[in-house]
């Protein structure tokens, strides 16, 4: 057995398999986390019957979904109906495969990055390309169901995902400018060299990326393609059984990949906080992979927090937000970041400091202002009394 076989066949296979398993398992566990987390925020308990704290609920759900009857609407396009979920799931896994989870490890005697695919020098481009394929899955699923609600959901998602690709892309470009590379590993290394996470100079870019990411994953407040109270289930209304489960898994897979990319681009990937500060080196006892996973996990918690808090945008408002607000901001931000990057590492630090100071100052100013009267108190002041 030649070394090249191990290097080119076995290791990628094992890593690819691990990624798929990881996405599927993490999606399952995430449903449990989400339901428990929502329960926490909503002063209820969430699932608590199967296993300790209901942990095995997701396994029970999977078992149920696998054995559930797979209903296909009578006049649906059968092939495309089947293809829909797969088209959505595959990009989710592929994207996650392109994100480095840690520095190099040794596997079967081969030193390899902890990375499902290789460390591509155009990884970010590939991520953008692959992740936009997922929208086909949603559109085709909506169209092939031969039902009106899925059709509307599919159309909504087509417009939504494509619109939000744009500000998302510009936000990513900002990070690329700061790092000077499209390779994920190099971006992380660049953050180590620059001495700060890119989230500080790229505060705006990060915000844009995260908001667009929420929109890309169809999560509250941008969950219009699903929009339970409007479109019943949106594009997956007519899906059941395991096909529906695949949609579900890909939604969570996408959440994870958005979190993972945000971590890589803006939060230093697997690096511990302040990687250049020597006296913090005791933090290195935690292996890099866990730093990475922990950061991604925090993002997922924010997703859940958002879901518990916000109402849903309307479709046209969502588009307006994307094109009229996020896109101009992302362009302006790109300009700003480019200027700073021209200056070099010092420029990034200055930009980061300015942004942080601005936000902090704004928050303090808002805090010190007298409390605003709630709208209902304003209404009470305009009361009208009618006495018979």
């Amino acid at each position, binding site marked *: 057995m030649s070394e090249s076989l191990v290097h080119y066949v076995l290791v990628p296979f094992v890593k690819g398999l691990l990624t798929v398993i990881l996405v599927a398992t993490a999606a399952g566990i995430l449903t449990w986390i989400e339901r428990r987390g929502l329960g926490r925020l909503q002063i209820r308990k969430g699932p608590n019957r199967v296993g300790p704290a209901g942990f095995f609920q997701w396994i029970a759900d999977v078992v149920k979904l696998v054995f559930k009857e797979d209903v296909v609407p009578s006049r649906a396009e059968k092939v495309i109906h089947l293809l829909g979920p797969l088209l959505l799931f595959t990009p989710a896994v592929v994207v996650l495969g392109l994100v480095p989870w840690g520095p190099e490890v040794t596997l079967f005697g081969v030193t390899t990055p902890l990375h499902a695919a290789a460390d591509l020098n155009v990884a970010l481009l590939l991520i953008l390309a692959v992740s936009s394929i997922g929208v086909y899955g949603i559109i085709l699923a909506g169209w092939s169901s031969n039902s009106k609600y899925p059709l509307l959901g599919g159309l909504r998602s087509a417009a939504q995902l494509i619109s939000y690709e744009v500000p998302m892309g510009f936000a990513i470009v900002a990070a690329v400018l700061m790092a000077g590379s499209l390779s994920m590993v190099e971006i992380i290394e660049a953050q180590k060299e620059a001495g700060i996470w890119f989230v500080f100079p790229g505060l705006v870019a990060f915000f844009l990326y995260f908001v667009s990411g929420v929109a890309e994953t169809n999560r509250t407040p941008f969950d219009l393609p699903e929009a339970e109270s409007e479109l019943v289930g949106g594009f997956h209304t007519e899906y059941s059984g395991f096909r529906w489960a695949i949609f579900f898994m890909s939604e969570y897979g996408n959440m994870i990949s958005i979190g993972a990319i945000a971590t890589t681009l803006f939060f230093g990937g697997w690096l511990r906080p302040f990687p250049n500060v020597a006296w913090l080196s005791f933090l290195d006892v935690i292996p890099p992979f866990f730093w990475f996973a922990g950061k991604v996990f925090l993002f997922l918690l924010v997703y859940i927090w958002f879901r518990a808090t916000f109402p849903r945008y309307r479709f046209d408002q969502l588009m307006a937000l994307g094109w009229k607000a996020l896109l101009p901001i992302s362009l302006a931000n790109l300009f700003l970041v480019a200027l700073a990057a021209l200056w070099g590492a010092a420029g990034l630090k200055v930009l980061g400091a300015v942004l942080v100071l601005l936000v902090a100052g704004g928050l303090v100013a808002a805090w010190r202002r007298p409390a605003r009267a709630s*709208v209902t108190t304003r209404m009470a002041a305009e009361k009208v009394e*009618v006495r018979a």
Partner: protein
Amino acid sequence: MSETTPGTAAQFPPLEGPPLLGLHEMELNFGPQHPSTHGVLRLVLKVDGERIVSARPDIGYLHRGTEKLFETETFPMVVPHTDRMDYVASATNNHAYVLVVEKLLGVEVPKRAQYIRVLLDEMQRISSHVLWLATAALDLGAITPFFYTFREREVILDLFEEYCGARLTLNCMRIGGLPVDLTPGWLEKVRAFTEPFEKNVDEYEELLTENRIWKQRTIGIGVLDEKRCIEWGMTGPVLRAAGKAWDIRRAIPYEVYPELEFDIPVGKNADTYDRYLVRVAELRQSRRIVLQCLDWLEKNPGTEIRGKVPRVIKPPAGEAYAAVEAPKGELGFHLVASGGNKPYRLHVRPPSFINLQALPEMAQGHLVGDLVAVIGTIDIVLGEVDR
């Protein structure tokens, strides 16, 4: 027709030219099994993309022939049937019915009973509005208020259970008064309920009132101005949100409302946001009334809860109409008696039914997502619409 629907509809002028492939309009069946039709409302929508060209409500899925049943029951036996119309506000249903019979009978209801009735009404209003807030927020995608507001509702239902033995279908009023007196300690429990109430409402407001998404979703949606509201017979918070300070509790006062102090919150813009604000303000006003009732009841202990009512209730022949301000609007009972011990004809004027009628006008030109907001803020209960 299109003149009557201001709001964001103007952003979407109708498509011009011949329909492409005949596909300009799509018929969309909204309900009767749909998460946000609040029961079994069915709407036949004509949509152009997502924009609503026309909406046609199709009701009757929950029709139970209540008015026919009324005619077969003696007067006291009608009360439990009224519970089942607006099943989230049965106290006001009971109240409207007993009022009309008392009007025809000429019965004097003891003051204490009147205060307790008002107290029950207002608690019912709180519970109904709170449930409305929960479901309306849920319709617009905010899931959490649903769980928070159920705390309030749960306490109120517990209090109802302690008073009359049921949580939802209360059957808590009788012709001439009340079935039972208060249990000892009940008033204190009600007072304990009112204490954190204001703070909790603040919390719901913090989640929604200023939230930009909530405002974008509700401001300018489903506008029906005062004139159109009256033309359509809209009452309750919908009318008040349009700027008309008209409340039966003030306009045609019944029971002890003239002695109580409260304001009528009114809106200005007649949109779903103002309806939301009016209802939230009414929550606070209802609390005020509850506190005043508690004060009176604590100062005036007594046992008199039922007026002098004949054993067999046979109102004189004739017609009478009495209405209360139910949480949804004017709930009236139109009674035609023929001198017997059963109502010859008892017609309900259900606020949900009348208010739902204007839905096509309010929804027209908006998007499907707005339709949900409009249905939510009209606050319909299908049990009352279909009876």
